[in-house]
């Protein structure tokens, strides 16, 4: 693997730029959008009391100064103290990460494990009833808003059929509905993409050659089709993980799942700057790491990418 070091260095550099941009945007947007102090105090707190709290939290300093402090501390992974919880933001946010990973990974694997075979099968049995049914479902999965889907699952699968608990985190049965809800969009996207990627490959000359030389259909699919279709599938699957982090915001709120998505919503409402900044930063890190892993995987799947 020639050139791995420069490749890594370049990647790392880009990642740092991305993190800096993300943090800066969040810093600016949060401060433009409202003031946390009135939300912390009783509604009748006098102005003097608000000023005292602003001073205490360092919110009275000029924005450029606050920004410089913020950048310096972020380098040390110090995101400041949560205004709302009165604890270091990093320790607040990291407490929520396991729940989000549990939900996100379950949704992700559930989606991938169902969607790839379905997409493959749809392509192989193109224009049959099975293909139409599968793609119909996929279309619905992509079109239905997460919020709607979540409530529908609760009313139908939990309240009416009594198969799963309505909300909260606990045993595996608590995980099913939120994972389905969160995974629906991803599942649908992967299935549709797998189908079209496989169809694309099936039209290629080397497939015709493979068939012409008398290979069985199973071998054609396993050895020639799927391996070649895998790269776009992998790309989109990895990118979908970012969608999952975004979807977690809604899903975790609907199912009162104690993860960083719900924490983010709540912290935005509370204008809890340090927690929002820390959450977005960590989410960005996760996204960048996953993309990086995918880049490495390309190399294994496609020898051309190793030198490219």
């Amino acid at each position: 693997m020639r050139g791995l070091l420069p490749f890594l260095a370049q990647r790392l550099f880009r990642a740092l730029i991305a993190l800096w941009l993300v943090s800066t945007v969040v810093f600016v947007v949060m401060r433009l959008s409202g003031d946390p102090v009135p939300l912390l105090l009783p509604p009748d707190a006098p102005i003097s009391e608000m000023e005292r709290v602003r001073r205490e939290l360092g919110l009275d300093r000029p924005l450029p100064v606050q920004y410089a402090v913020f950048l310096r501390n972020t380098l040390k992974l110090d995101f400041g103290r949560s205004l709302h919880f009165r604890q270091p933001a990093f320790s607040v946010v990291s407490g929520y990460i396991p729940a989000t990973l549990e939900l996100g990974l379950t949704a992700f694997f559930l989606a991938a494990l169902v969607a790839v075979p379905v997409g493959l099968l749809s392509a192989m049995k193109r224009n049959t009833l099975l293909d139409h049914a599968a793609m119909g479902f996929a279309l619905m999965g992509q079109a239905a808003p997460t919020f709607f889907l979540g409530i529908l699952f609760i009313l139908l699968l939990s309240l009416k059929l009594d198969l799963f608990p309505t909300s909260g985190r606990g045993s595996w049965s608590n995980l099913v509905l939120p994972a389905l809800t969160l995974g629906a969009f991803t599942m649908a996207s992967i299935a549709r993409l797998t189908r079209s990627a496989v169809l694309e490959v099936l039209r290629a000359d080397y497939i015709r050659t493979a068939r012409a030389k008398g290979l069985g259909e199973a071998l054609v699919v396993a050895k020639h089709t799927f391996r070649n279709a895998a790269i776009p599938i992998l790309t989109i699957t990895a990118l979908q993980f970012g969608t999952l982090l975004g979807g977690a915001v809604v899903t975790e709120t609907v199912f009162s799942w104690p993860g960083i998505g719900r924490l983010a919503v709540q912290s935005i409402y509370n204008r809890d700057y340090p927690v929002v900044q820390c959450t977005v930063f960590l989410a960005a890190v996760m996204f960048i790491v996953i993309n990086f892993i995918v880049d490495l995987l390309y190399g294994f799947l496609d020898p051309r990418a190793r030198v490219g």
Partner: protein
Amino acid sequence: MELTRRELLKSAAALTAAGTLSQALPGSSQAQTTQKKDLVVAQGGDISKLDPHFSTSSNDIRWSFNIFDNLTSRHPDGKLYPGLALESKLQSQTVWTFKLRQGVKFHNGDPFTSADAKFSIERTYDPNAKTMVATVFTTIDKIEAPDPYSLIIHTKKPDPLLPARLAFYGGQIVPKKYLESVGNDAFNARPVGTGPTRFVSWVKDDRLTLEANPDYWGGKPDFDKLIVRSIPETAPRVAALLKGEVDVITQLPPDQEDRVTANASTRVEGALYAGLYVLAVNSKRPPLDNPLVKQALSLAIDRELIVKELWKGRGVVPSGPIAKGDNFFDPKLPPLAYNPKEARERLKKAGYKGEEVFIETTVAYVSQDKAMSEAIAAMWKDVGVNVKVEVIEYSVRAQKNREKSFKGVFWSDPTSTLGDPDGMMWRLLGPGGPQDYWRESKFDELGAAARFSVDEKFRAEAYAQMTKVFLENFPWLPIIQPYEDYGLQKYVEFTPNPNQQFEIRRFNFKFRRA
């Protein structure tokens, strides 16, 4: 999606028969009694802090009022009862003495004494403690603890409402020794009080677990464990109740009540909110600086219709600035009138020439605010007011509130923290108060005098006069005094508290046993 009662019963019966109930409660879905030992409550928001002096959010104080006790205690009937203080006496105009309960222990075994009471109240306004309730006890001059079971509080001026102040937020008594030894952060993470429930564990945004304090001076509450869950969305919260996963839910909106009532095993219980939902008026902005215009706006609102249609009858039409249930509420005063014809005439008399009147509404800052804004805008248009509705976000509202930069009228839900007009209209509308947009010397003189008078007859007369001035000037347009509703399993006996405390002491909460 609406599930009918019949469908629900059918599916419940079918599933019970099939034996597939995964989360079955003891007994059937029809159970009106229970053998349960654990009480599970779901509220609409997350808990942020358990240290009672660092939060006034209802999602926090519901529980801190049950971990801690106050010196005085306001029961669901709206009256003050002894808490950790057995007796309070007005010794002279500015001196209150309190006789404290003996033999009370904190959850860690430390005895409760006057030193804890003195420490707790002083902590609220100690600049070094940096609490969020620093303004609750501004009337206090100094506190003495002459012996372990006596407390003397000197006020700067006569303060008739000191016992009422002690009953609400800021007044929770914390253990001096324990708090000083572990520090604020550790105390917030593992609070210790004298209340009916003891802290067990807290997983943020998921659940808070408390257990019954077997040695509670008011008797052990009727459960072993109390589990508090946060379910922010209404639909899943109601679903959790209907399915029997939780015993009580808070913040039940009126449009969901039919589902709870229609279900065989659940019911609705409400308390008239200790306060009002009002459109507060920036009376400095023309045309709202003209009292005649404000009178016309009030007359143009069909409050009966709002209560009936938007609130499904779960509220009452206010008669003025004093909430029903408060001191000096006058039951003889008629509800605020609806008279569009008279409204048009007063607008004409005021010389109103179509100037814009803004409603800056939030969405769900107070329940139904946006829907009520739209209804009221339509009613105002009907009498010829040029009304504009603008939607603002919660924290923007907070900022405008701080800067006093509202363009017209805006939603507010003044809570009567003391069960008295002083803690509501005077606290908010008084000079320098957060909603000080209008001044009238007679109103101001009476308000100031009533605040510092211990003569109840004088105060009654003062508030009656202030109500009259209010109804000519409408610094608020009171709209509704709503019910705050809870969904309960039928085997739960519980009377909600009007001021959002969640009272689960012996006198107020019971499981119905077979």
